[in-house]
C-alpha cells in the first residue's frame, strides 16, 4: 500500500507541474489585467491539437511543435487583448466575451478534428510510455518534462516581473493604472504583451498534454475544476505561487484517487478551493500586506 501511496505522491507532484503551466496564464491575466479569460482553456486544447497535427503530419518529435505553438499562442493572446482594449470592456463583459470565444473555439476544434479521440502515434512520440525508476517509484518522462517547464516558467516569470522594466511596468499597472499612465507607462502595450505571454504559456501546456494523453474536444471541461483552485490557491498573478499550488492540488488529487477512487479527486480539489476561499482568499503564497 505504501508503495502505491509513494507512487501517487510522486506522480501528483509531477503532474502538479503540468497543472501549474495550465494555470499560470489565467492567473497572470486575472491578477494583472483584471480579465478572466476562459478562452485559455480552449488555447490549451488548441495547443494540444496543434501539437498532434504537426507531429503526425510531419512525423517529427512532438516537442518540436513548441517552435510553432509558442509564437502562435503569443499572437492569439495579443490579438485577444487588443480586442479587449479596443472595445473597452469591463470585467463581466470580458468574462462573457471569453465564454463566447470558448464556445466558438470548441466548435471549430470539433469541426476540424471531430469528437473522436486523437493520439500521437507511438513511433513518433517517444515520450508517451517512457519512464524510469527511482527505488520503487516510477517517474514518467512526459510529466517530468512538464514539471521542468513549469519550474522554468515560474522562475522566469517571477524574475521578469521583479527585475525587468517590463515587470516594473506590470506591477505599476496592477497598483494603479491611472498613475502608471501618468508616469508614462503605455499600459495598453504592456497589457497586450502580458496577455500574449500568458496565452503562450497556456498553449505550451497543450504541447505537454499531447505527449501523453488522448485528445478529445470535451477534455478541456474537466480542466476547469483543477485550474481554478490552483489559481486561487497560488494567488492571482503569482507564478511561483501557481507552481506551489499546482503541486499541492496534484498531490492531494493523486492521493485521493488512490485512497477513494479516481472520481473523488475532483471533490477533494473542490474542498481545497472552498477552504482556500474561506481562509486564504489572497492565496497561500502571497505575503500579508501585498495585494
Amino acid at each position: 500500500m505504501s508503495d502505491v501511496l509513494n507512487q501517487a505522491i510522486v506522480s501528483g507532484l509531477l503532474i502538479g507541474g503540468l497543472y501549474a503551466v495550465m494555470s499560470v496564464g489565467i492567473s497572470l491575466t486575472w491578477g494583472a489585467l483584471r480579465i478572466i479569460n476562459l478562452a485559455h482553456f480552449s488555447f490549451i486544447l488548441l495547443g494540444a491539437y496543434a501539437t498532434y497535427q504537426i507531429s503526425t503530419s510531419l512525423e517529427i518529435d512532438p516537442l518540436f511543435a513548441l517552435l510553432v505553438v509558442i509564437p502562435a499562442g503569443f499572437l492569439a493572446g495579443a490579438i485577444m487583448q487588443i480586442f479587449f482594449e479596443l472595445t473597452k470592456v469591463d470585467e463581466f463583459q470580458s468574462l462573457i466575451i471569453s465564454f463566447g470565444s470558448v464556445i466558438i473555439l470548441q466548435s471549430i476544434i470539433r469541426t476540424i478534428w471531430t469528437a473522436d479521440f486523437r493520439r500521437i502515434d507511438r513511433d513518433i512520440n517517444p515520450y508517451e510510455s517512457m519512464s524510469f525508476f527511482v527505488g520503487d517509484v516510477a517517474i514518467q518522462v512526459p510529466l517530468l518534462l512538464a514539471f521542468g517547464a513549469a519550474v522554468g516558467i515560474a522562475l522566469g516569470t517571477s524574475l521578469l516581473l521583479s527585475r525587468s522594466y517590463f515587470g516594473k511596468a506590470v506591477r505599476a499597472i496592477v497598483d494603479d493604472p491611472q498613475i502608471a499612465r501618468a508616469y508614462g507607462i503605455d499600459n495598453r502595450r504592456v497589457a497586450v504583451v502580458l496577455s500574449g505571454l500568458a496565452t503562450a504559456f497556456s498553449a505550451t501546456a497543450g504541447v505537454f498534454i499531447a505527449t501523453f494523453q488522448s485528445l478529445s474536444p470535451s477534455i478541456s471541461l474537466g480542466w476547469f475544476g483543477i485550474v481554478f483552485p490552483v489559481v486561487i490557491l497560488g494567488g492571482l498573478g503569482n507564478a511561483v505561487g501557481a507552481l506551489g499550488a499546482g503541486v499541492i492540488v496534484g498531490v492531494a488529487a493523486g492521493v485521493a484517487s488512490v485512497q477513494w477512487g479516481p472520481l473523488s479527486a475532483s471533490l477533494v480539489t473542490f474542498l481545497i478551493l472552498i477552504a482556500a476561499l474561506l481562509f486564504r482568499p489572497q492565496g497561500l503564497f502571497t505575503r500579508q500586506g501585498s495585494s
Partner: protein
Amino acid sequence: MTRRTKALAGFAVAAIVINLVPALAEALDTPGFYITFMFTAFFWISQAVSWNILTGYSGYFSFGQGAWFGVGVYTTGVLAAKEGWPFLVALPIAGALAAAFGLGLGLVVFRLRKLSGEIFALTTLAVAFVLASVARLYSFIDGGRGIFMTGTPLPEFLGDFRTAMFRMTFVVAFLTVLAAYLLYESRVGWGLFAIRDDEQVAHGLGVPTFRYKMVALGTNAFFSGLMGGVWALQIGFVTVDDVFNIRVPLFVILMSVLGGMKHWMGPVVGAVIIYTLTDRLNSAGLEDVNQIIIGGLLIFLVLAVREGIYLRMRMRWILTLTVFGTAMAVWTFADLATSLIWDFAYASLITLLAVLLPTRQSVARVLRRGGPATPVEASAAERAST
C-alpha cells in the same frame, strides 16, 4: 389594477391556457410538434427567468444554472424512475433539493469577507463539475450507467405525454415568471437592485444584503431544479454528460443578455427569440454552424446592446408591433414558409433587426415620460445619460 387583481387575472389566464390549448390542438388536429415547440419554449423561459432573478437582480454572475438544473433532473430520475415514487411527489422534492444545494453554497460563499463577483461566478461553475463527478461516483444516483425515464407513469388527469409535458412546463414557467415579477416589485427586489448598484452602500443603508442574496439564489435554484425535474421526462435517457454540461448556463446567459437583465420581462423575450432561432437552425441541419453563431452572437450582444432589447422594444413599441404584425401576416398569408413556427421565426428575426436599428432616442427619455421610474429604469436612465 392592483397587484392582487393582476395576480388573480394571471392565474385565471393560466388555468384557461393549460386546459384550452391542448383541447384546441386536438380539435384542430395540429401537428404534435407545435406542442413540443411550445413546451420547450416554456422550459427555456423558466430557466432564463430564474437565472435572471439571481444574476439580473443582484448582479452576482452565476454559471451554476446547470448545477441546479442537474440536481432537479437527477432527483426525479432517482426517485420517480428508479425508486418508483409517484412523479408528482418527486417533483417538488426536485425543486427543494436544488434550492437546498443553492442555499448551502450561498451559506458558504456569501459569508466570505472578500467575495468578489468573479470568485462567485467561477465557484458556481465549479459546483456543476463537482456535482457531475458525484453523480458519476455513486451508483445510487447514476454511477455512469444513466437512467431511463421512459417508463415513468404520469397521473392520468394530465393527459397523454405531450399534453402532460405542456401542462407541467407551463405551470412551472408561469410560477417562475410570477415569482420574478413579485420579487421585482417587492421590497426584496429593491434591496437586490441596490446590492447590484453598490453592495457596500446598500449594506450601509440597512439593506439585509446576506438574506436578500440568499432569497435570490434560493429562488433561482428552486425553479431551475423544479423545471429540471419535469425536463427529465423529455430527456428520456438521463446521463451525466447530457445534464451537467455548459449548454444550460450558456443559453440562459445568452437569452438574458439579449432580452435584458434589468427587467423581469427581459429573459422571457430573450428566451422565446433565441429558442425559436436555434430550433429553426437545428431543424435546417446547421447544428455545427449553430454553436459558432451562438458564441458570436453572445459576444456581439454584450458589446452592442447593453440594456437588452426588451427596454428598446418598450421604447419603440409601435415599431415593434407593426413590424412583427406585418411580417407575421405576410409570411402566413403568402405561405412563404412551411409551418407557423417558421413564420414566427422569420417574423422574430425581422423584428429583432428592426429593434436593433440605431436610434437617437435613449431608453431613459421614454421611460421618464411614462410615469415614475422604477429603480431599475432610473438606474438605466442614469447610465444612458452619462
